[in-house]
């Protein structure tokens, strides 16, 4: 196979490599006469990035045969792009035959220098492919990258996971506090308190989708999705560089979300490439109580099949995982969970029970519980029966309390409870994290 590209296509390609390298370590290259696809999946299998290019994207596009596949380390490709793009006249990518052991990447620079890189193909390529039909997602929104950047700037830059809570724009009673009227979407920081992080800045941002988003579609009960910020920012940079809006499709907690660039209708030139980012979301909803029939947290990796379909065997698999890893993100300190719960939905009992399981598995904590795309469906209906609207309306006023958020599985120390006194008491409760009472910044307290 042989491709040559230059100019703006080269810039987009370089951006694609940057985005892919922020997701995973290996790059899978799949070339067919009609499409070049680059994929990467992260090591915890919770993020899958795919960028595809049509032959028209390239100056030269030659494929011998039907399909050529290989896999290389992204770090090596990033070395190729250390040369400033502005000084490159064109780039050629060449694989002399399907079984060749090295892919050749050649840069011809305006300065007259020619740089040829031979990058070794991975011997056992683990080329996974995941495709999700965008039409299966009931909800979505479109946002401009710079607007999303601005919203994310309100959050601590070291934030790892973020929750997006989407409600139907007209579902608020008219007597709801004016601050929340019309603000149908909430962005909320998700802090995994099982990790010893000093970043205890919690942020909630209510926004009016009509003002912040180009487009917003959500009907029915509120749903929330919690996913990784790092991959979101990588994709955001990509879209920003390509000057396209971001289209985010979602369903509900536990179901993956999908992001894609939203090309304008008049943007014919940029439609010769496309990108998809699929992120697994946390099983546990930030809005609802956990399902009593299962331990509070569970995780399994996003199930990616070699074939094109999302496998239905995922269900069974995640079921196994749940019992094996009942608590992937957890409060370790059981005494806190008892005092922390505010909503009297019986969460206490559940949490404490969950705690004993959790402590045993404290060593197995991972950053974010991930789970199969298919898993949630059997438990979802239970959640949706919970009354939500009144809870959503509450967190408006000055106390900033989020009753549904009381689920202490998510809130670890309890000081993510919205009752004001919790903020102050957090360090007293917690003997294990003395650094909190020392390190908390003054405004943290003064706020309450």
């Amino acid at each position, binding site marked *: 196979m042989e491709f040559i590209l230059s100019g703006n296509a080269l810039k987009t390609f370089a951006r694609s490599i940057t985005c892919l390298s922020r997701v995973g370590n290996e790059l899978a290259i799949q070339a067919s006469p009609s499409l070049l696809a680059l994929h990467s999946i992260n090591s915890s299998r919770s993020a899958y990035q795919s960028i595809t290019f049509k032959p028209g994207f390239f100056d030269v596009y030659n494929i011998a045969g039907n399909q050529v596949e290989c896999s290389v380390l992204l770090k090596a490709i990033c*070395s190729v792009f*250390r*040369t400033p793009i502005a000084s490159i006249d064109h780039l050629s990518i060449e694989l002399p035959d399907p079984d060749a052991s090295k892919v050749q990447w050649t840069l011809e620079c*305006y*300065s*007259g220098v*020619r*740089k040829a890189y031979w*990058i070794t193909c991975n011997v056992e390529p683990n080329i996974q492919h995941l495709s999700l039909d965008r039409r299966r997602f009931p909800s979505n929104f479109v946002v401009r990258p710079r607007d999303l950047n601005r919203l994310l700037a309100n959050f601590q830059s070291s934030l790892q996971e973020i929750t997006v809570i989407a409600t139907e724009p007209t579902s608020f009673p008219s007597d709801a506090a004016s601050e929340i009227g019309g603000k149908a979407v909430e962005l909320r920081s998700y802090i995994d308190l099982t990790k010893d992080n000093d970043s205890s800045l919690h942020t909630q941002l209510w926004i009016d989708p009509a003002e912040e988003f180009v487009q917003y579609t959500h009907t029915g009960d509120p749903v929330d999705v919690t996913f990784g910020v790092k991959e979101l920012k990588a994709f955001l940079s990509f879209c920003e560089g390509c000057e396209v809006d971001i289209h985010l499709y979602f369903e509900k907690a536990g179901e993956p979300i999908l992001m894609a660039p939203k090309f304008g209708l008049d943007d014919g030139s940029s439609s010769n490439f496309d990108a998809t980012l699929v992120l697994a979301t946390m099983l546990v909803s930030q809005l609802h109580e956990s399902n009593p029939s299962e331990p509070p947290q569970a995780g399994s990796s996003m199930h990616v099949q070699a074939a094109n379909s999302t496998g239905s065997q995922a269900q069974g698999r995640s079921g196994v995982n749940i019992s094996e890893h009942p608590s992937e993100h957890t409060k370790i300190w059981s005494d806190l969970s008892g005092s922390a719960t505010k909503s009297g939905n019986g969460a206490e009992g559940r949490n404490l029970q969950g705690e004993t399981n959790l402590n045993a598995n404290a060593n197995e904590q991972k950053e974010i519980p991930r789970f199969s795309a298919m898993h949630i469906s059997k438990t979802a209906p239970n959640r949706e029966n919970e009354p939500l609207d009144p809870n959503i309306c509450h967190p408006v006023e000055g106390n900033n309390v989020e009753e549904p958020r009381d689920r202490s599985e998510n809130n670890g120390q309890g000081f993510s409870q919205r009752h004001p006194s919790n903020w102050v008491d957090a360090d007293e409760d917690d003997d294990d994290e003395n650094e909190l009472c020392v390190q908390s910044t003054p405004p943290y307290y003064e706020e309450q």
Partner: protein
Amino acid sequence: MNSSALDSEAPDLVCQLDNVQGMVDALTAVRWKRSQDAVIELSEHGIVLILEENACLQAKVYLQRELFILYEYSAHGRPRFGVSLSLFVDCLNTFSVPGHSSTIEIRYPGPDMQLLLKSVDSLDAGIYAEIRTRIPDTISWDYNFEPAGSTPITFTVKSAALKEAIDDLEWPGSSIQITLQPVPPTVTFRGDGHGDLQIDFMYYANRDLLMAFHCDSQISHRYKYKFLRAMTSNIPVSVLKDNRGSKLTVGRGGMLKVQHLVSVARQSIPNPHIDSAGYQHPSRIAYIEFFVKPEEDEDNIND
């Protein structure tokens, strides 16, 4: 030359330099390790600073007397002494005030064989420094560079391009093979490690890139990456911005000589040596030379 009756008590050298930053730039170009011991040799022609590593790499900085606004040499013979390069450069840096050309006086030897430095042009404060020197215990290995054949094999390349190429060649993680071939006139740098990278400078591709090229038969030698890296990693920014060229010559046995030119001119105040904006009188330029021995294996490989 100082011809006073107190000749025997006069210091070997008293010199004044009106742009300390230029000297710092020149000396920084030969810093490739945190701690390096340099040998300084004084003569009536100027100051030479010599560094070595492992008997494989040698660097020299020539600061000829024309760079100085005052140069009084009264030694017999050529005094040599050892000094820590990092200490010397850090010390010079304290005399260098950004945006203001500072004049410094260097005097050797002090009462205890130290190197003495002091500021001379500031009215409100004076800076004075002494640096301990050592007796150099090794005789600098005279690399005795000889041309490979009747015509020297040499090329001159834009310093910025050379630095970029050597930075890129870190990736393969291997020794670097440098090949010159006459037809078509090309210089090739190649590394074969956990990935392969080949960088070609083609004479006809762009006249600004290879500014000179002389080679009558193909030659090829391998060099350790860290030595090539030492030669380019600290090229001063002024050299890169001025679009200067670096001259590389391959001598007998594959010994590689690399020469850089660093401007030591004063920026702010007009200098009689500078004829027009940008043109530096040759005497306001410090010469940097590196000598690198090739890896032992091959000699004159034909690719």
